[in-house]
């Protein structure tokens, strides 16, 4: 099955034409300086190229991916006449991405009405996190009015990781619900504690800025620092946002730059502080995850830098606490090296097959 995956962003418009059976991207790229007006023109071009690439066959399905789907989208959803209406209330929470997604859906209604389309979100997996994990120490009215709650943003990775572990451990210890730490090592890394296939804790927050420090995002800081930048240093909101999201993180700790892959390479002295800070923050998050899981059966790494999990686990298992845990109940260490596109294409092809079956059953 050939699936066109679209990621309409604020500035970039990413696309991948993916052969799900071959686990292979046929063609991929991005358009920049995209706005809502230019989307129909760009999509027309993309669809045309897709047909050219596969002997003038149209894609079997189109997936539209967004980071944030709020509580409106606790799962992937087939695009129908209500989708745009369901997306609109999310605009205040994601004012950059949701309008682009809506424009994409509207354009596809005209350009490719016959192709089944799905929307998928990074947050869906975390829609029903426990209340105690969702909320902050703020007035509940304020949180409700401003849609403030915790989410995870790499839900598709975590979900696929949990599935992999469940399959693996089902054979080893049937009937037991595995306790999983899932660490997605992307430029915005995220750790989730998962019980079976249900997330119980996640490091990200109301936005992906909270939690572990990323390539350029600061991660968790004292909230008073944001106030200080305005009060004492006279920074405006745009400057604060720019510095905390694009000029902080590992980038700021390892001059001139660092990626998660690079900082875990041996002998990188100029990355020492960046590595130590990230390692330590992950360790703290593991401890917090353990207090919700009550034990540990597996640690699984995914994302672009999943293999950085190898030196990390080596470091982690040198600690007496983890050695004791491992002795009592051996911890399964695993890696999911699938790309986001691979994970999306698998989900979409399964959904499309189901959809076709249902359509056939009805007719």
């Amino acid at each position, binding site marked *: 099955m050939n699936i066109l995956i679209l990621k309409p962003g604020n500035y970039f418009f990413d696309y991948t034409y993916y052969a799900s059976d071959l686990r292979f991207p046929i063609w991929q790229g991005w358009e920049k300086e995209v706005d809502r007006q230019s989307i129909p023109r760009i999509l027309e071009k993309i669809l045309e190229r897709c047909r050219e690439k596969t002997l003038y066959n149209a894609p079997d399905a189109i997936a539209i991916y967004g980071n944030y789907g709020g509580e409106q989208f606790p799962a992937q959803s087939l695009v129908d006449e209500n989708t745009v209406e369901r997306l609109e209330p999310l605009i205040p929470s994601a004012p950059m991405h949701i309008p682009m997604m809506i424009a994409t859906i509207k354009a596809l209604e005209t350009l490719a009405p016959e192709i089944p389309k799905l929307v998928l979100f990074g947050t869906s997996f975390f829609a029903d996190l426990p209340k105690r994990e969702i909320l902050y120490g703020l007035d509940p009215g304020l949180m409700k009015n401003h849609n403030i709650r915790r989410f995870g943003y790499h839900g598709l990775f975590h979900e696929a990781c949990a599935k992999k572990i469940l399959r693996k451990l089902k054979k080893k210890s049937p009937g037991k619900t595995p306790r999983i730490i899932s660490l997605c090592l992307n430029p915005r890394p995220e750790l989730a504690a998962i019980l079976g296939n249900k997330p119980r804790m996640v490091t990200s927050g109301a936005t992906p800025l909270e939690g572990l420090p990323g390539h350029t995002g600061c991660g968790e800081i*004292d909230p008073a620092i944001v106030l200080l930048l305005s009060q004492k240093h006279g920074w405006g*909101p745009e400057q604060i946002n720019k510095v905390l999201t694009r000029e902080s993180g590992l980038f700021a700790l390892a001059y001139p730059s660092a990626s998660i892959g690079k900082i875990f390479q041996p002998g990188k002295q100029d990355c020492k502080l960046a590595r130590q800070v990230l390692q330590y923050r992950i360790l703290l998050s593991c401890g917090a995850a353990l207090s919700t899981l009550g034990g540990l059966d597996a640690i699984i790494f995914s994302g672009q830098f999943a293999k950085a999990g190898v030196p990390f686990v080596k470091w982690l298992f040198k600690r007496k606490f983890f050695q004791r845990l491992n002795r009592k109940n051996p911890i399964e260490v695993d890696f999911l090296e699938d790309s986001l596109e691979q994970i999306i294409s698998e989900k979409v092809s399964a959904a499309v097959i189901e959809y076709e079956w249902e359509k056939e059953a009805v007719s």
Partner: protein
Amino acid sequence: MIVMVINCGSSSLKYRLVSMPEEKELAGGEAQRVGPKTTEPARILHRYRGKQSTHLKEMKDHGEAFREVMNLLGNTPELRPEALGHRMVHGGSRFKEALLVEDDVIRGLEEIQDLAPLHNPPAVSLLKVCHEKYPDLPSSVVFDTSYHSTLPEYAYTYALPKQMREQWGIRKYGFHGTSHQFVVEEAAKFLKKPLSRFNVVSCHLGSGGASLAAIVNGKSVDNTMGYSPLQGLIMSTRSGDLDPAIVMNLMHQNNGNPDPVEKQLNKNSGVLGLSGVSSDIRDVFSLKNKNGEFSEQLNQTASLYIWRIRKYLGAYLTVVDSADAVIFTDTIGETMPLARWMICSDMELFGLKIDPVKNQSQELPLDCSAENSPVRILAIKTNEELAIARKTYDLIENLKQSRRNQ
């Protein structure tokens, strides 16, 4: 020498008169519920010669509370203080150790008081009141940040640009150091362990502020509070951890003005913000609706408060690696067995097994862990005042000595 130790909490003023160097407590007490509105009236609980008396007084600020306490002491001539020891929350990077107060110290403290907007301003204004109105009384200041000066670089570093870290001093400082240090040392004595090989997670759960500290070999390696006391646990009126984007969002809602947001996060959030009725977690647990059931909102407040502590406890027990003990201290930690129970139950993974019967005891120091618990669970009475009295006495004696030598 009679040292009067003054400890301004966000909602309380604790005082203690200690005869030094004998370390004999002569009198003491606490002005409670100073400042933010709670369900009960403000009062001074005064202890002298084994008797406790309650004095109901309206106390709008800490200066007023101090004058009321001095009026109370005025009735007893043998309780005239000869020196004052002030607890100060934040010393920033300028004040790393306890010191005696001069005019320039007050000026310096005024310059950095926005580091702890809830605690430093009342303590600094009280210091000023004492310095001006009681010029014969020497004052010392002891900082909450000093104990955490041993934090490793990777624990105190925020992933922020170099300029902010190196030139503006933005880093984790950690607080409640005087209390954490005191209970850790007391716990080591209680368990007969050498301090230099004592690994602990110390839970300072006050009725105002609260923080956890990770201690390795008797030294602080992490604290849940950060650059300011706003970070970390859900506190009486402070939000604790927040996504920085939420702070930006709230500032945006206030037309870019940070001041109402600062007030919101420091004074109207935490237990008060969540429950809507009280800033004291004890009220949340004891208040029930008409049917005798927790209301949804109170239930949620209690659950969030405990959950945040459990997450950090798990994190710090992992960091400490081979913990000897978990210590509970200050008002909530010492007097709320239910809180200790909710925090420690189902934590066998970390070697914690709490004994439900022992946990009910109000007698401190208390070991409420089960016999077979690999990690001891202790409740230790904190005595920041005694720790401050010791430092104040030493500073004054050193000064006298150096004057004699000149």
